[in-house]
């Protein structure tokens, strides 16, 4: 097992791009390799040692043996875990844009808040965010109609707007509240939101499942009620309590299912 610890010593207001520093590329690097590495910053590259103290312990045969620990505020470190296929990355602080974007495997844990585009177009692996995420978590590239297609994202805090836009697979669990248009244009996959939702989940969804355990403020006209179910099994997951099931979005002939906690949404019964 190889443990690589990067401790932030200088905060750069221009974001650092970390897509080259994933277990797949650094599993055979020693401390000297890190010290010689120049990290992309804006249109230039600067030594990684300008920004981080570096510690490397142990050896690895492949990316699966790598554990990277990023200590400090990574609020200006973009693309953490970008396209990683294996190994583990732990961020002990906040993470910037595109954390876990296009991730294929392995695990990424953020012990803080994350910016927008967490797990964008993710295909596999696990992302866990202990704080909140901003907009477009598990979404598609702008203009692309296929978003996250595999893997699991677990957010313990709140999620911003347009969660899992164009989602075509995988699972997302949000512990807190969620803003507008969760699962918009969704074609497949599973979204579970523990808290309240402001408006319009599942807009133009064609298929897939959204479960809301809190209160929903506005439901779209494109959803037809299909009845109330007790302790339903949804996508192989057992839900406890009474749920109202809706089918939609009718506007796009969608066959997606939206499950709302019946007790919290009594006004819709």
């Amino acid at each position, binding site marked *: 097992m190889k443990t690589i610890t990067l401790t932030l010593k200088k905060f750069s*207001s*221009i*974001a650092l*791009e970390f897509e080259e520093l994933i277990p797949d590329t650094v599993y055979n690097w020693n401390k000297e390799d890190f010290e010689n590495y120049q990290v*992309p*910053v*804006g*249109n*230039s590259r600067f030594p990684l040692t300008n920004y981080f103290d570096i510690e490397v312990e142990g050896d690895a045969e492949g990316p699966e043996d790598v554990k990277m620990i990023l200590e400090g505020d990574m609020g*200006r470190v*973009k693309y953490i875990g970008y396209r990683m296929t294996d190994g583990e990355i732990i961020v002990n602080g906040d993470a910037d*844009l*595109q954390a876990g974007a296009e991730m294929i495997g392995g695990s990424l844990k953020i012990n803080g808040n994350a910016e*927008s*585009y967490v797990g964008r177009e993710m295909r596999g692996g696990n992302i866990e965010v202990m704080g909140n995420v901003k*907009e*477009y978590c598990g979404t598609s*590239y*702008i*203009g*692309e*109609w296929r978003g996250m297609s595999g893997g699991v994202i677990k957010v313990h805090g709140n999620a911003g*707007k*347009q969660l899992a836009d*164009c989602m075509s697979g995988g699972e997302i669990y949000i512990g807190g509240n969620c803003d*507008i*248009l969760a699962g*918009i*244009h969704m074609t497949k996959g599973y979204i579970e939101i523990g808290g309240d939702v402001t*408006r*319009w989940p599942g*807009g*133009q969804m064609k298929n897939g499942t959204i479960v809301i355990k809190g209160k929903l403020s*506005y439901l*779209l*006209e*494109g959803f*037809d009620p299909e009845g109330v179910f007790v302790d339903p099994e949804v996508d192989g997951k057992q839900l406890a309590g009474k749920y109202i099931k809706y089918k939609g*979005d*009718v*506007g*796009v*002939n969608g066959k997606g299912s939206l499950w709302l906690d019946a007790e919290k949404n009594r006004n819709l019964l």
Partner: protein
Amino acid sequence: MVYEEPVTDYDHIVENCTCAFCGSNCDDLDYLVKGNHVVAVRHACRLGASKIMEDEDQRLKVPMMRDENGELQEVDWDTALDAAAELIANAVRPLFYGWSETSIECMKKGLELTEYVGAVIDNQATICHGPTVQAVQNVGYPLMSLGEVKNRADMVVYTGSNPMNAHPRHLARYSVFPRGWFRQRGRFDRTLVTWDPKFSDTAKMSDIWVPFEENGDYAFCNAIRAVLKGKELKEDVISGIPKQDIIDLTEAMKNVEFGALFFGLGLTHTLSKQRNIDIAIGLVQDLNAYTKWVLLPMRGHFNVNGFNIFMAYQMGFPYGVDFCRGYPRYMIGETTTVDLLNREEPDVFMVIAADPGAHFPGGANMHLANIPVIQIDIHWGPSTELADIVLPGTFIGVETAGTSYRMDSVPIHMKSAINPPETCREDEWIVNELYERVKKIKEEAK
């Protein structure tokens, strides 16, 4: 309103000029010129005419730089260009913003410079119709030319825009009043509909006004789509509009021969942003199962659409294109101007033919006050107060010829009618000169 006598004291008329104001790009203007000055404009609206005639008001005429006391002082062109090139060549995160009020020829030079230094290039779409462009990328673009609307449309819908104030000749020249091939009686052959929370000047003259509540656009369009699919609406009132009104409106929209939906920033900048446009496009697609419907954004500046078309054609992305890694990248919130400024990333900012000082949020302007700003423009404005180097350009469509794209993506040649002030330089020349000088600095450093 005071009656003004027609202007008769002029030397000659330059016919068929193109207006350099809004995205309607009216190309039937006549300029009355006297002593190298446009003294009157025929056929233009008040907005266009005042911009063309009063171009000498607060005109930037000489290059300027800030001295040690922070005051702008006149300098010669070489000093200003060298200083600007030095800033650009040494920047780590340069950002070039604007471009919507200059020519495609100038943008071409700007793109060369951007690519060479690894900068971000962005235009006003980032604060206006950016969400439209994103939605178009997602779900398509059922657009038309304005000529088709003039000749065919029997229902015209304006939503989130007020063309009577912002695009004054749009209704008169393209959409509602003109007599077209199949609409020989002009206004009488057309139904004008406005969907807008406000009783705007356009709403006042409409046949149908649909005052949905603010931020209710997404749910309103969703309800129309559901009705089109034969669904009975659950709620009695949706987004502030009674159920029966939505059903009647949907029926009316289904039964026209040719419908055109025009939308403005009222749709792009409410709560669900690009998803409003996304669902409006979806709605137009659904309506095409019954009859012909098209849609078009009401673009603001005369060449804001030109920049998006030019960039999409050259680089594959419409705006907010980041070349910092040597290849083009585009991501909303990451490579777009206001987000970059709010994150305090850019270290040099060049603004050309735009006024961020007047239009950007306070946080973004605060960062502009802290970094070097190069301005290429023709008029003194709030951005000049933020600028460290000012390079005076020329007025496209009046002093310099160039190409622009109308809101329906029709390219239009803009004539020059008068000579620019001697001390000013064409935008294209300035940007090219910056490129040559930056290249020289970079090559010497190697």
